[in-house]
């Protein structure tokens, strides 16, 4: 069987100087896309299955009392949860000796920081994201202002990085809090890190997951319906339970649309 590269040679190089794929009709393109879509859906399912495995990972108790410097002074690992049940800590390289210091953090870590989604969504699923580096807080505050980053970012003061596999290389550690007890539940690095940044990629590495009813989670885990908990990032605090109109749209999209049209026909803009 011909390899992809061999097949590519069947098409001559055009004026772009590379072997571009054939130009086809809309119909042919759609057929080719649907073939690939089947593979993409299989990949999505296998990602869901991996996340389900992660939710069944055993936990490691964290007994050592780690301390960090934060924007408001000295804090413990427990404080980093900000009262939430789940915590993801990304170890970013920003310290003397790292390329870019002191103006910039490591380029890869900076690219990662640029793709962090608005944290209101993650926070609303009882999950906190924090960055941690060796740089002092004054440098971290300056870096955040310069680059427009707003995630909590702490200074590592002890063996936290070495103990959790991020002494020499970046990585995401996941922790779970039960009262004052803390557990390490997962760790991801290398190519795993590059996929992080979206609300979903973060939740998929946590022990509770997205907390949605369709997920394969251990029995007894709290789950709510997908879509219904979604909100605008500036509206989670104002609206503590889902807006009935939004729930209506999610539950019965066609019915909701028809009810809206009826209301508009009656000259009412309230629906």
């Amino acid at each position, binding site marked *: 069987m011909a390899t*992809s590269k061999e*097949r*590519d040679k069947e098409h001559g190089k055009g004026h*772009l*100087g*590379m072997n*571009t*794929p*054939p*130009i*086809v*009709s*809309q119909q*042919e*393109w759609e057929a*080719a*896309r649907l073939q*690939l879509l089947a*593979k*993409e859906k299989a*990949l999505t399912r*296998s*990602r869901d299955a*991996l996340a389900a*495995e*992660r*939710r*069944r*990972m*055993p*936990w*490691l*108790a964290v007994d050592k009392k780690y301390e960090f410097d934060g924007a408001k002074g000295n804090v413990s690992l427990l404080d980093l949860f900000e009262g939430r*049940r789940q915590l993801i800590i990304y170890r970013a390289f920003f310290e003397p000796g790292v390329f870019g210091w002191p103006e910039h953090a490591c380029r890869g870590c900076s690219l990662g920081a640029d793709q962090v989604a608005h944290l209101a969504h993650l926070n609303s699923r*009882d999950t906190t994201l924090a960055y941690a580096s060796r740089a002092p807080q004054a440098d971290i505050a300056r870096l955040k202002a310069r680059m427009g980053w707003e995630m909590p970012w702490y200074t590592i003061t002890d063996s936290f990085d070495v103990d959790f596999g991020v002494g020499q290389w970046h990585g995401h550690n996941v922790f779970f809090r*039960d*009262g004052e*007890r803390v*557990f*390490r*539940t*997962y*760790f*991801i690095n290398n*190519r*795993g890190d590059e996929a992080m940044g979206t609300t979903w990629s973060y939740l998929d590495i946590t*022990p509770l997951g997205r*907390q949605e009813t369709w997920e394969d989670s*251990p*029995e*007894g*885990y*709290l789950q709510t319906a997908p879509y219904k908990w979604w909100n605008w990032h500036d509206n989670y605090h104002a609206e503590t339970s889902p807006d009935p109109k939004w729930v209506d749209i999610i539950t019965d999209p066609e019915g909701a649309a028809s009810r809206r049209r009826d209301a508009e026909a009656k000259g009412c803009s309230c629906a």
Partner: protein
Amino acid sequence: MQLRMSATTPPKACVAKERTVTDFVRDELGAPKIVDRSTFEAKLDALRVREKAHTREGDAIAAARRRLPMVEVDSATSLIGERGAVTLLDAFEQGDIMDTLRGLA
């Protein structure tokens, strides 16, 4: 947020010490277990093999995506931008990406 507690939770009078969510998870759900570091690392390594296979599969699909055929579209298609009417061609914002790539090579 609380993990859902089952109806089997005994009445308070029978409980000597308040049970934590972790106790509940460990005793009644059987998962996840609290383990020592070497067991944790071994489980992580086992899952890592599947993680990497998944990454490679994603790379293979991206490679297939780069080989999808293309459909020609009208580059003069009109769009309205912040500064008024533009064409689909304008929306690319730059000249030739190949020039950029060649510059980096």
